[in-house]
């Protein structure tokens, strides 16, 4: 199959204007990734405020009103403006390259979705300068806490409007992720040859299309409740606060997988390249991605076990089942490493860190899926520890793996390896120091979203450990920023495949790739076209 229409011509080739008007998928991908990393730095700073306030009992560095805005914006930015959009940016950059296409299927829609995302993020943060401050109802904005009678400030409205924009932006970008690999594949690139990362993005796109419209609906209903007296969620008028939770989590649980499936793809690619092995269990990995996506549509109410308003056993059983395809991913990664020739450059270090951390997040997720455990652990620091192990120790580590792995492809320069190792060491140590103690804090009875705690509770030492961990993570992030600045200066000519062992098509074009990606496409006769091109003597292994 070939492109049916020529990609739109760029209005400007260089300078700021070129970036403002671009419809080039690579530039849009870079804009997405840079913007999301910017929000990551802000959300990380907010996490430091949280850890400073909680470092010791009964502190008043920030008061309750400010603290509640801080954790609301921290969660909102990390989830809606960092983890998911970084995956979108990476996918924008990589999908056309991996399937041998010159562009996304809908380049203008792509540009629109990025700018709408940026506007949405800025709208959420604009609440900071309004009277009453930013939203403070948590990233979940449960009714009736988010109702106008309780959260009167315009900050809450800006939060709802901003996230509605990012939600619509996500739906549009998902259309591109779904259509492009189906219709724009290069000759020879059958569906069963496209790289796992692109497969994961197809599953992600389907999830977005099913999950984001309900989010937009929930937010529209909140706005109508707030400003037109619609009373969808007002029990005084026959409305139901539990209804909001159903709609929100019908989005919210698939969203969890929108934030992890792309990074399962990243880990698959990184592990195979640095193990110098073909991906093990390609078919199993693809089927597992769709099994996870499918199951994730039927588990939302495990966030609602303590409401007493849902069929707990059904949702517990469905949630347990997700462990099976997730386990398949882990076993396939291990089998990919098995009998390989593994080297430990920074992307691989972060990939191994991902596996060790996400494993903890996944296993404690199975625990939380059991209602008799959830009745104690829900909304405690046990839950905070669990989802930070999936989204921080998991997705964030995979984001760093991706950053180091594809940086030479995107910028034509490798990140410094020594600084990369320091970054990884600080992150791995800091992350576990910060979040492992939280499991124990939760079991001991510390609830989430409290701005302070009494000294006699005995939680001081574990919280201090957590705050020291946060400091190490912050230093690690500073090392990363320094690494990027230093490495960008020393551009040197790189081969098409700077790591060696790259197998997907992006490693068969220059670093960075030219406009429309390929000067000439290599023949595509297996799942490893770039590897076959560079190492024809091993091409027979690609055919298995």
């Amino acid at each position, binding site marked *: 199959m070939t492109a049916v229409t020529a990609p739109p011509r760029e209005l400007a080739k260089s300078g700021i204007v070129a970036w403002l008007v671009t419809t080039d998928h690579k530039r849009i991908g870079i804009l997405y990734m840079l913007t999301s990393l910017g929000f990551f730095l802000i959300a990380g700073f907010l996490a430091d405020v949280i850890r400073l306030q909680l470092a010791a009992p009964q502190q008043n560095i920030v008061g309750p*009103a400010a603290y509640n805005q801080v954790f609301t914006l921290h969660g909102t930015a990390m989830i809606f403006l960092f983890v998911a959009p970084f995956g979108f940016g990476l996918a924008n950059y990589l999908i056309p390259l991996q399937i041998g296409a010159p562009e996304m299927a809908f380049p203008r829609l792509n540009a629109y979705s990025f700018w709408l995302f940026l506007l949405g993020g800025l709208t959420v943060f604009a609440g900071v300068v309004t009277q009453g401050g930013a939203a403070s109802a948590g990233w979940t904005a449960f009714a009736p806490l988010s109702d106008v009678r309780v959260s009167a400030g315009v900050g809450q409205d800006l939060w709802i409007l901003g996230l509605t924009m990012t939600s619509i932006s996500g739906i549009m970008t998902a259309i591109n992720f779904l259509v492009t690999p189906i219709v724009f594949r290069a000759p020879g690139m059958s569906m069963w040859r496209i790289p796992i990362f692109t497969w994961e993005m197809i599953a992600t796109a389907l999830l977005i299309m099913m999950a984001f419209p309900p989010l937009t609906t929930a937010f529209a209903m909140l706005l109508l409740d707030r400003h037109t007296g619609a009373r969808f969620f007002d029990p005084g008028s026959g409305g139901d606060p539990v209804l909001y939770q159903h709609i929100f989590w019908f989005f919210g649980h698939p969203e969890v997988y929108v934030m992890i499936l792309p990074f399962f793809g990243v880990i698959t690619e990184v592990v195979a390249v640095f193990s110098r092995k073909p991906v*093990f269990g390609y078919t199993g990995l693809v089927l597992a991605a769709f099994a996870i996506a499918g199951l994730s549509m039927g588990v939302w109410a495990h966030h609602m076990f303590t409401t007493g308003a849902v069929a707990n056993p059904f949702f517990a059983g469905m949630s347990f089942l997700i462990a099976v395809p997730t386990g*398949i991913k882990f076993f396939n*990664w291990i089998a990919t490493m098995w009998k390989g*020739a593994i080297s430990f450059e920074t992307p691989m270090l972060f990939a191994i860190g991902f596996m060790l951390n996400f494993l903890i997040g996944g*296993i404690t997720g199975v625990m939380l899926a059991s209602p008799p455990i959830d009745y104690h652990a829900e909304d405690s620091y046990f839950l905070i520890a669990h989802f930070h192990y999936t989204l921080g120790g998991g997705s964030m580590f995979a984001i760093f793996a991706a950053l180091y792995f594809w940086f030479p492809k995107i910028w034509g320069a490798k990140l410094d390896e020594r600084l990369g190792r320091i970054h990884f060491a600080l992150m791995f140590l800091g992350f576990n120091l910060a979040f492992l103690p939280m499991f*124990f804090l939760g079991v001991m009875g510390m609830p989430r979203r409290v701005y302070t705690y009494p000294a006699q509770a005995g939680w001081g030492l574990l919280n201090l450990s957590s705050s020291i961990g946060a400091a190490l993570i912050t230093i690690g992030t500073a090392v990363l920023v320094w690494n990027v600045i230093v490495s960008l200066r020393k551009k040197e000519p790189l081969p098409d495949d700077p790591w060696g062992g790259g197998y997907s098509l992006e490693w068969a074009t220059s670093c960075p790739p030219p406009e429309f990606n390929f000067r000439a496409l290599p023949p595509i006769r297996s799942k490893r076209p770039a590897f076959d091109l560079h190492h024809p003597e091993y091409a027979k292994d690609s055919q298995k």
Partner: protein
Amino acid sequence: MPVRFVALAAAVALTGCAAIPHDATQQAGVMQGVWAIFITAAAVVYALVAGLIVWAAIAYRRRDPATVQGAGFSQNVPLELAWTVIPLIVVGGLFAVTYPAERHVESVVTPPAETVQVTGFRWSWRFTYPRAHVTVEGTSDKPPELVLPVGRTTEIRLASSDVIHAFWVPAFLFKRDAIPGIVNVYDYTPLREGVYPGRCAEYCGTYHAHMSFTVRVVSPEEFARWLRDHGTAA
């Protein structure tokens, strides 16, 4: 090597169990059993999978920097079926542990020996004993005390008068949401006399952190005396 993993798993499991509060209610005893099984299973699975990851990384490190490709295999259907079916059996087992425990914890005795209406509001709690006409109401500065008789089943009727709260007694390993427009009903059967801290677990606004209370479990005689002393006549 496997022996060491199992020993490590057992150590982690024991530490985990020790961190869990002792069974202060009959229902908590059942839930503690579920915790113990899950923590043990979690520790074994973690030790096994993390062990494999670390083992593979060390055993198959690149010795010759010029290696272009390690082994060339990329599938093994029997193995892949095995690591699909075995986890399926494991989660089936976990469900079998979960289901009866949940049924037990959720079951409500009728008629209960005692009933307390618990109402959450921003930012404290009101405890009403309807039969004795006793009401205790706290403030965020003065947390209220819920008094329960030991060895008897008390029905809690949980509600909220504004936003959603959650009534959590960590020592009872249990919380339930207090939702406006809904009355959530469940039982406590305390087994040990003592004073247990409790707090709101569902974020409810500015002073959520101060929405605490205590539960005091006393002998039935003391409970009757307490009700008399706090009745409307007093």
